[in-house]
C-alpha cells in the first residue's frame, strides 16, 4: 500500500458516504436550526458519526494499548524527542507552505529550525531551535488553501486519521504524495513506501500520546463528544490558519451585558443579522 492507496480508500469512503447517509436539512422556517446546520457544516453527519464510533472502538482496542506500551518503554523525555524528530521531518512541508502563503519570515524560521535541529539537535531529536528563539509552527496544504480563500468544506471523520474536512483531507493527500520529500525518496528507491508508513504510524502514536489527556478531558466534560470534538477541531484549524491569533471579534459580540438585551426577545430574533453564527473557514 502506498499513499495513492490511501487516496483511493478515502475516495471510496467518501462516495459511500455520499450515497448512504446524508443529514436531513432542517426546514427553512426554523431559522435557528438552519443556522446550526450551516455552522456545523457536516452534511455527512450520520456517516461521520458511524465512522467516529468505529474510530472510538479501534482506539480502545488498538491505539490506546499501543500508546500505553509506548509510555511504558519510553520515558517522557524520550517521547518528547520522538515528537521533535517527527516534527523535524515535516519541516520541508511547512517550509513549502510558508512560501506558498507568502510568509518569508516564517519560511526563514522553518528553514533555520530545520538546519539547527538536524545538525545540532542530532537529526531533530532535540529542539535546540526553540531555545534559540526560533519557535515551532506547522503549515500544510489545507492551511495554504485557506489562506488562498478556500473554505473548509464539509466535515469528514476518518477512523485513525481523526477529524478533518474536505479541504484539509485533500490537502493532507497532496502533501503526503507530492510535497513530502519522503514520498519522493520512497518512489526513487523502488517504491519502498514502508518508510512513509513507519513515519505515519509513528505520528499516529505520537499525536495520540500528546493529545490523549486533552481529548479525554473534552470527552469527560461534554455530553455529545462527537459535536464538541468537531467544534474543537474546526477551531484549532482556524487558529492555525490565523497563525495563532485569537478568534475574530464578530463571534463574540453576544457577550453583551444584560442591559443590552432587547426586552422583546421574540421580536429581536427576527432582526438578528445572519453574521452572529457564521462559521469561520
Amino acid at each position, binding site marked *: 500500500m502506498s499513499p495513492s492507496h490511501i487516496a483511493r480508500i478515502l475516495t471510496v469512503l467518501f462516495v459511500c458516504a455520499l450515497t448512504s447517509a446524508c443529514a436531513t436539512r*432542517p426546514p427553512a422556517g426554523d*431559522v*435557528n*436550526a438552519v*443556522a*446550526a*446546520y450551516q*455552522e*456545523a457544516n457536516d452534511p455527512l453527519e450520520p456517516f461521520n458519526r458511524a465512522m467516529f464510533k468505529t474510530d472510538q472502538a479501534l482506539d480502545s482496542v488498538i491505539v490506546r494499548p499501543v500508546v500505553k506500551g509506548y509510555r511504558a518503554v519510553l520515558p*517522557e523525555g524520550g517521547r518528547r524527542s520522538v515528537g521533535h524528530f517527527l516534527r523535524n521531518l515535516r519541516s520541508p512541508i511547512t517550509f513549502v507552505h510558508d512560501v506558498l502563503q507568502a510568509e518569508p519570515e516564517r519560511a526563514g524560521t522553518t528553514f533555520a529550525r530545520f538546519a539547527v535541529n538536524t545538525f545540532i539537535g542530532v537529526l531533530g531529536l532535540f529542539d535546540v531551535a526553540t531555545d534559540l528563539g526560533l519557535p515551532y509552527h506547522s503549515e500544510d496544504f489545507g492551511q495554504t488553501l485557506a489562506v488562498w480563500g478556500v473554505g473548509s468544506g464539509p466535515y469528514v471523520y476518518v477512523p485513525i486519521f481523526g477529524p478533518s474536512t474536505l479541504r484539509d483531507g485533500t490537502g493532507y493527500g497532496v502533501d503526503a504524495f507530492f510535497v513530502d520529500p519522503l514520498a519522493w525518496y520512497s518512489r526513487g528507491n523502488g517504491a519502498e513506501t514502508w518508510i512513509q508508513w513507519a513515519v505515519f504510524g509513528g505520528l499516529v502514536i505520537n499525536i495520540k500520546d500528546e493529545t490523549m489527556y*486533552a481529548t479525554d*478531558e*473534552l470527552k*469527560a*466534560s*461534554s*455530553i*455529545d463528544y462527537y*459535536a*464538541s470534538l*468537531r*467544534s*474543537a477541531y474546526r*477551531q*484549532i484549524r*482556524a*487558529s*492555525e490558519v490565523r497563525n*495563532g491569533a*485569537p*478568534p475574530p*471579534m*464578530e*463571534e*463574540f*459580540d*453576544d*457577550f*453583551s*451585558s*444584560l442591559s*443590552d*438585551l*432587547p426586552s422583546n*426577545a*421574540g421580536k*429581536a*430574533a427576527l432582526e*438578528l*443579522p445572519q*453574521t*452572529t*453564527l457564521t462559521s469561520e473557514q
Partner: protein
Amino acid sequence: MISRRHLMLASAAAALAPRMSFAQAGADAGAFVTDFAQKGIVDILAAKIAGAEKQQSFRTMFATYFDLPAIGRFVLGRYTRTIKPEDLASFTPLFEDVIVYTWSRRFSEYNGQSLKVGASTPDGDDGAIVKSTIVGNAGENYAVDWRLRKRPDGWRIVDVIVAGVSMAITYRQEYTTLITQQGGFAGLVAQLQKQVSDLKAQAPA
C-alpha cells in the same frame, strides 16, 4: 452582534471624547487575570483544604471573576433570543454547575504549575484579550488566552481559549447540536441535569 444602538453610542463616544488609552486598560486587564490566577492557586489549587471546600471556593471565585450570565447567553447563541425568559433563568445555574463540577474534578492534579501573564490587546470597544502561558514543571507550556469584557464595576472574564480552542464556542456548538437533534431546549436541560448528577457522583470529598 453589534446592535444599531451600540454603533450609535460608539460613534457618539468617539466624536465627543478622546479614546481611553489602551495601555492603561490593557494593564488593568492583565492585572485582573494575574489576580485571578494567584487567588486560584493560593486559595484553591495549592490550599490544604478538603476537595468539597475547594469546589465551594471555586464556585464563589468563578461568580466573581467571570460574567457567567453573559457566557450562558453566548453559549445558547441564537436560542437566547427565542427561548422563554424562565428557561434562560433555569439554564444559567445548571451551566454553572457543569463548569464548577467539571473543573473541580482536576484540582487534585495541581502540581506547582504557574500562569505567566503576557501582553493584552484590545477586543472591540469594551474588551481585551490577555495572553498567558501555563508553565508546567516539566518544561511543558500551554498557551491560554483570556477574553475579558469591561463591566460598570470592573473586568469580567467571558472566555478561556486554550491552544486555540475557545471554551465558549465549543460549548455553544455542542449545545446547539443537542438542541437541534435531541429534543430542543427541554432536551438540553434534561441532558445537563443528568450530566450534573453524574459529575456530582464523582466529586471529591
